[in-house]
């Protein structure tokens, strides 16, 4: 009894934000909370107001209706709140829905609410749910902390400790553990957890997880089988279609991948990330009608979403141009420039697609000017230009007949990402699409070999104690391919090893910082990054 009272007290002292588009609803929920003993309650009438409120202060608990009329819906409020970290560690987002089915969860979403509450609910149910959630969350506080700082291995360790002593909610802990194993890159462990869960029950989440492990470890045929069966047995489980499409794309079956996503979009058309994926696939397949439909939808959904990006507009403009409506395409580009005023990526996309449209219309000089402008904008972004932009510019260069530039850019992309299977596959696709006079396999293979060889040589030097030589080698490599994660990490590693022998050195420390930061910005969840960061912290601690 004691503990129950204590917990109830915890709920009473929390700060609440209630979001609903109906004034009567807001006051009713506020009234319920007040009867429970909550005093700190703010109200918001729509998604935009909710975001503004969360920008001003941190709420412990957000009770948000899914359906908020025009403007952002509840899922979009959640995405913005989590994406921009407007609600912090330990705060709860509860989605209030009118329905008891969970198709929203099943869509292509990155963020899930902490809980759902189905209307109508009574104040007794609300209190009970809040108390239970708060209890669960307190149990998982340390895990959440580890996850927020991307320390997935630590999160798994903490969950293992809990699994060893707890007797309740083991299913939920197991599900979390598998998820973090997957994100930490411990595929074997994740697979074991999923298979074990499946031996007990045909759980859709475990089947999806197993498929993801198979996909991540390159067992595409097996992955396809898992996703096929999962979507057949649970036709409403749209995440299965997303992964099936991804797998098919990796198998170079782009048409099948598109058909799969089309099915998922019919079931649940509100997921912007899925519309985006469908649009891009359709563009690749030169099905401009489908691309236009999907990307118009994505642009529209983007008005209220953190996932709004220039790529959606650029793709839509390309689809229009593909249908022979180049002028409409140019209008979309103008709109993009207005929406993303001053953003370099937007300007770059605009120059590229405009060039493509001029070229298709036979306006060679204008097209060439655009390509020159695109090149300048690209270089202005600097060393940390995302790889997909490099590929985009390569594509445009190739389409406009500048195969030399396309080849150079593709070479850059491979050099900076020689260990990224998906990206290399895209490079291969692109080389084939552009009908360049090179063999994609040997083009990629040769560059890869060169870099793998270089990395091996450096690692051997370091092992043999020739640290200065290794540092020299890797620094040169990192300067030539600043986006290459393996090279950056190796460079940081040998610098740390050399400081272990010669002591801390300010210039070296700064370099290590820079190399690690590069990887952190490009791929914050990289498991190797975690290891080298630990080496670095160890070094600083020992030298202190």
């Amino acid at each position, binding site marked *: 009894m004691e503990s129950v009272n204590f917990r109830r007290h915890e709920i009473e002292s929390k700060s609440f934000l209630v979001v609903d588009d*109906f004034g*009567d*609803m807001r006051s*009713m929920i506020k009234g319920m909370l007040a009867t429970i003993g909550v005093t700190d309650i703010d109200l918001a009438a729509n998604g935009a107001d909710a975001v503004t409120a969360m920008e001003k202060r941190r709420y412990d608990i957000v009770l948000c209706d899914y*359906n908020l009329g025009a403007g952002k819906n509840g899922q979009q409020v959640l995405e913005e709140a989590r994406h921009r970290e407007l609600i912090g560690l330990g705060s709860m987002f509860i989605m209030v829905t*009118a*329905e*008891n*089915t*969970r*198709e929203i*969860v*099943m869509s292509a979403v990155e963020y899930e609410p902490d809980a*759902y509450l*189905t*209307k*109508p*609910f*009574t104040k*007794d*149910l609300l209190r*009970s*749910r809040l108390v*239970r959630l708060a209890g669960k969350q307190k149990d998982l506080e340390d895990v959440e902390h580890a996850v927020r700082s991307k320390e997935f291995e630590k999160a798994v360790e903490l969950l293992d400790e809990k699994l060893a002593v707890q*007797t*309740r*909610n*083991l*299913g*939920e802990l197991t*599900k979390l553990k598998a998820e973090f194993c997957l994100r930490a890159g411990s595929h074997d462990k994740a697979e074991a957890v999923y298979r074990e869960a499946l031996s007990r*029950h*045909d*759980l*859709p*989440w475990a089947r999806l997880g197993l498929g993801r492990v198979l996909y991540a470890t390159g067992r595409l045929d097996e992955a396809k089988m898992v996703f096929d069966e999962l979507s057949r*047995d*649970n*036709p*409403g*489980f749209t995440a299965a279609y997303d992964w099936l499409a991804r797998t098919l794309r990796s198998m170079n079956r782009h048409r099948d991948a598109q058909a799969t996503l089309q099915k998922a979009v019919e*079931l*649940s058309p509100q997921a912007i990330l899925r519309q985006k994926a469908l649009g891009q696939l359709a563009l690749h397949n030169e099905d401009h009608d489908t691309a236009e439909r999907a990307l118009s939808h994505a642009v529209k959904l983007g008005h209220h979403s953190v996932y709004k990006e220039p790529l959606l507009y650029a793709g839509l403009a390309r689809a229009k141009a593909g249908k022979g409506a180049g002028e409409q395409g140019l209008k979309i580009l103008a709109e993009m420039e207005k929406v993303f005023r001053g953003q370099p990526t937007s300007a770059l996309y605009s120059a590229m697609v405009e060039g493509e449209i001029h070229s298709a219309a036979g306006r060679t000089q204008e097209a060439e000017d655009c390509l020159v402008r695109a090149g300048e904008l690209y270089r202005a972004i600097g060393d940390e230009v995302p790889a997909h932009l490099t590929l985009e510019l390569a594509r445009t260069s190739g389409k406009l007949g500048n195969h030399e530039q396309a080849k150079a850019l593709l070479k850059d992309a491979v050099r900076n990402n020689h260990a990224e299977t998906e990206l290399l596959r895209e490079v291969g696709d692109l080389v084939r699409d552009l009908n360049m006079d090179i063999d994609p396999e040997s083009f990629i293979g040769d560059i890869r070999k060169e870099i793998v060889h270089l990395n091996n040589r450096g690692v051997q030097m370091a092992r043999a104690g020739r640290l200065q030589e290794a540092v020299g080698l890797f620094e040169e490599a990192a300067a030539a391919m600043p986006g290459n994660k393996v090279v950056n990490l190796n460079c940081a590693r040998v610098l740390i090893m050399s400081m272990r022998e010669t002591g801390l050195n300010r210039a070296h420390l700064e370099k290590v910082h820079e190399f690690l930061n590069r990887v952190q910005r490009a791929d914050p969840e990289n498991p190797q990054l975690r290891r080298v960061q630990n080496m670095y912290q160890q070094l600083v601690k020992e030298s202190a």
Partner: protein
Amino acid sequence: MNFADVMASSIHDMKNSLWMVINTLESLDDVPGTELGRDQLCLLRQEAKRLNTNLIELLTLYKMENGRVSADVRESYLSEFFEERVLENEASARALGIALDWECDPDLHGFFDEGLVMGVVNSLIGNGLRYARSRLMLSGGEEDGFLAIRVEDDGEGFPEAMLDSGDAAGQGIEWLQGRTHLGIYFARMVAGLHSNKGLKGRIHIGNGGSLGGGSFTILLP
């Protein structure tokens, strides 16, 4: 906008109105001097809740028809599930003079979609409150590898034509003594969405049970 969107948003609207009605009726209970209309109040609230349950059932069935619903099966504790169902329905039961209780091993857990099964159990409770004399009981247990969730009352029991049947009866919607079998049809559909290792969920309708009245069981693999 297609029909599904129109339907979903209008149901959202209808449910908001119903919620206001239900909540207002519930708060009237606490106001002294409304003694006179207590029976009518009770009736109003019951009907509003039934309307709400029907809306949920219709919407879910519509989505099932279109292949939009799959069971999001997770591990849940039955005791927690029952506790919440009682909290949701306690006030109506009290007003009707019916004792609503639950009974099961506190450690009993099973695999099911809480949202869907919640719809089924709320609907069964709603019905049970109409037919029970003084008691309504939720109970759970394991039976031949199935999780059994049972709702029993001490009323007259189900009419002969509805019994037994388990899976044969109510395949279509029949009209019987002026009521549809929507709730039963819904329960059967939800049970059928649950499957495990080749087994499918099902329902069982019987009389007698531990309270001597109607006994409705949903069996989940």
